[in-house]
């Protein structure tokens, strides 16, 4: 009756619990841990999913551990909202699954189970109204710390072949993607909407997603992880643009090498021409670069954007040089070429024909290259969920929705997403941004509309809640809940707090009442 699984992520083998007596039949082993007496094939589990045949022995895979882990990380209580006015169903399938049923989570390979959750209520002098909003208008902004060219601005970004967003204006050291939004979710084909929704959901829940940019790169993005561009993991951000790098390291180079070129897709820096080099007294080297000179020692467009040196498409840095000027250059002149991350470098000496010939990097220069690397921050992908809660979601909080908007605008009401602080965009509506890595695991869900479901809590003082026309009838003190299932009674209420393992960095949104969270 059970599907075998061999997923070692979910089945932790505890040797100590090993080995009920076993009889063999071929490579199958008969497990006598329980009266079902399953024959278990190698690498598979019996009907219970608890005992597996691993290397010819029956070994216990411990689902209780799994249950405990999921319960402690997921939190134990999730309120379930509903009222006559508002069927404010709290949708957090993963955590509902963990917290409301639990049975499902004891199976590493569990059934797709419906689940039951009971009503939990909170509200002392602080009120937290917990809902999970369905966001048709939502998306993610992705910041990818890399100078490698991912694609041209406004190029389409695709997942599974469907357009899910576009490349937007880059930031210093980072490429930016804007994904999702109502047009991709509901404005295109059904498949486009579904794939967009899955992409957003996976990104918000911290899963890796492979994206491809039209006429650009393939990149694997995972919130909090390094980007993987065309199969290569990006390790570090550039220390700065090429010109900035010259500025930062000119002193360490001066006197050790005659010329330094910092190759960068944005601004390639040349020490001898750069103000920083001039200031130190660097001499004209006769170097000539391709591209367009911006100001002395600063060159735009020395090559095409790409995934080679410093975010350009080059693999041989000499290709960005024109022949040295014979009037100014001299044989024996030394030159360091280095990328803005220090990951690529080359040391050259001009021969009698004034051609650069590569030599081994001298130790005193190696130190400076390593220092560039050392000064580069780890390259990360960061994902901000952005959505507008300006619509009827507010009716779940108050009879007079615009008062909630104003209350948020006046900072009387704090907005959090699964306890994570949210930035509220100024202006009309409640347009929020939140770092998905600060939201509890799998805090986001979806509905097949398609639209994303995100947790959202409005926290305010009780009197402020009353003032904005809150559903006071539904507010109950936390104590009335403690350890009791009697208060459930089939009444489903929508003012409450969800108890989840709080993120270490998040300030608790609700003040003193927070200590009473049910867990």
């Amino acid at each position, binding site marked *: *009756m*059970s*599907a075998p699984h061999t997923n070692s992520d979910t089945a932790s083998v505890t040797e100590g619990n090993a080995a009920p007596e076993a009889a063999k039949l071929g490579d199958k082993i008969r497990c006598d*841990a*329980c*009266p*079902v007496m399953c024959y*278990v*094939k190698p690498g*598979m589990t019996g*009907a219970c*999913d*608890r005992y597996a045949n691993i290397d010819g022995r029956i070994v216990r895979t411990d689902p209780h551990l799994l*249950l405990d882990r999921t*319960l402690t990380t997921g939190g*134990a*209580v999730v309120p379930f909202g*509903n009222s006559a006015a*508002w*069927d404010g169903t709290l*949708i957090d*399938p*993963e955590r*509902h*699954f963990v*917290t409301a049923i*639990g*049975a*499902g989570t*004891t199976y590493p390979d*569990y*059934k*797709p*189970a*419906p*689940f039951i*959750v009971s009503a939990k209520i909170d509200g002392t002098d602080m009120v937290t109204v917990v809902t999970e909003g*369905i*966001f048709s*208008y939502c998306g993610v902004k992705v910041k990818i710390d890399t100078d490698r060219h991912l694609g041209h601005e406004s190029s389409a970004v695709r997942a599974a072949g469907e357009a899910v967003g576009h490349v937007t204006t880059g930031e210093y050291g980072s490429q930016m993607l804007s994904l999702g939004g*109502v047009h991709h979710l509901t404005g295109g084909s*059904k498949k486009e909407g*579904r794939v967009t929704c*899955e992409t957003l*959901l996976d990104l918000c829940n911290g899963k890796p997603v492979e994206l491809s940019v039209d006429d650009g790169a393939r990149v694997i993005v995972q919130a909090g992880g390094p980007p993987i561009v065309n199969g290569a993991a990006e390790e570090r951000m550039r220390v700065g643009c090429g010109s900035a790098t010259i500025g930062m390291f000119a002193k360490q180079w001066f006197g050790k090498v005659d010329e330094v070129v910092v190759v960068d897709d944005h601004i390639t820096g040349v020490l001898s021409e750069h103000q920083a080099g001039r200031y130190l007294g660097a001499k004209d080297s006769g170097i000539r670069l391709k591209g367009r000179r911006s100001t002395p020692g600063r060159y735009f467009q020395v090559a095409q954007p790409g995934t080679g040196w410093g975010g350009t498409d080059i693999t041989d840095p000499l290709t960005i040089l024109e022949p040295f000027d014979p009037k100014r250059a001299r044989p024996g002149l030394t030159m360091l070429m280095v990328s803005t991350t220090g990951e690529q470098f080359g040391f050259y000496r001009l021969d009698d024909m004034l051609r650069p010939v590569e030599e081994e990097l001298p130790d005193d220069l190696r130190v400076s290259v390593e220092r560039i690397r050392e000064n580069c921050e780890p390259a990360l992908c960061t994902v901000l969920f952005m959505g507008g809660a300006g*619509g*009827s*979601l507010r009716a779940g909080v108050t009879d007079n929705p615009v008062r909630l908007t104003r209350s948020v605008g006046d900072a009387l009401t704090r907005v959090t997403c699964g306890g994570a602080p949210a930035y509220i965009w100024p202006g009309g509506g409640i347009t929020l941004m939140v770092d998905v890595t600060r939201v509890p695991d799998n805090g986001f*869900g*979806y*509905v097949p*509309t398609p*639209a994303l479901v995100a947790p959202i809590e409005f926290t305010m003082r009780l009197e402020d809640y009353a003032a904005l026309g809150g559903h006071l009838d539904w507010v109950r003190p936390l104590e009335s809940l403690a*350890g*009791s*299932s*009697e208060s459930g*009674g*089939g009444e489903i209420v929508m003012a409450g707090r969800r108890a989840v393992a709080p993120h270490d960095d998040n300030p608790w949104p609700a003040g003193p009442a927070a200590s009473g969270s049910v*867990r």
Partner: protein
Amino acid sequence: MSRAQIRMLPDGCRLHLQDGPIDLIVEAFGARDDIRRARDAATARFVTILDELCAELPLLRASVGRGGYPPAGIVAGRMHDAVAPFACYGFVTPMAAVAGAVAEETLAGMRRAAPELERAYVNNGGDIALHLAPATSFSIALIDRPDRPSLFGTARIDADEPIRGVATSGWRGRSFSFGIADAVTVLAASAAQADAAATIIANAVDLPGHPGIARAPACDLQPDSDLGSRLVTRAVPPLTDGEIDRALSAGLACARDLRDRGLIEEAALHLQGETRSLASPDAPASLPAFTPDRREFVHG
């Protein structure tokens, strides 16, 4: 029974019972004494169930279509009775209803011990038996895929409706399936009946002969499987909209038939992001009985 594990979950409300392959989450609502009596009864009833079932396991693993003796045990009897009406849909064994029947029997024990109980549920890995006193209700949230759990709807079950069982079946789940549905969720009069029906409908959601669907003999995966050498679904490739529609339509026809025979109340079928239900066979986004859209949208 030292083998079974019995404990309260950390919320102090839900009881977790486990024995061999059976995992139950039990919760009762009502007066304090009734809750206590119900928990004790659930535990008392639970600890012998696995032995009772194993005593006649070979019979329970045999097709009900073959005649023969009805099983002797109470749970086994519930299983047999639940699957018997489905014999005409092809090969089915009482094991198709085991999870629901165990939930049902445990709940029955609780109700005997605490007749005044307001509400209770016994959830056996997603197959759920419900008790509802008059004028009470349960809300149930439904998900479509276990590996990407997300809610597609909620069902509110009121005491005056003839629904006391909820079950879900699909190839991604713990049980094997002949079909390709990600999940089929059924509401029926009893948990065992819902369990058996979900299995049958999930089997019917299929594209026979589709070359991309990987299938393997059940006995190659689990030597003792009641399904023997019959092919069970192991992987389903991305399907075209037309294929999805065809497979779901086949399942829906089966579900409709079961409803017309009075065996189920409602069914929702999911395949690769598409959802159909008896209540709204053509409009996947709106499932009146499951009411996913009673929640208002933030926009549009």
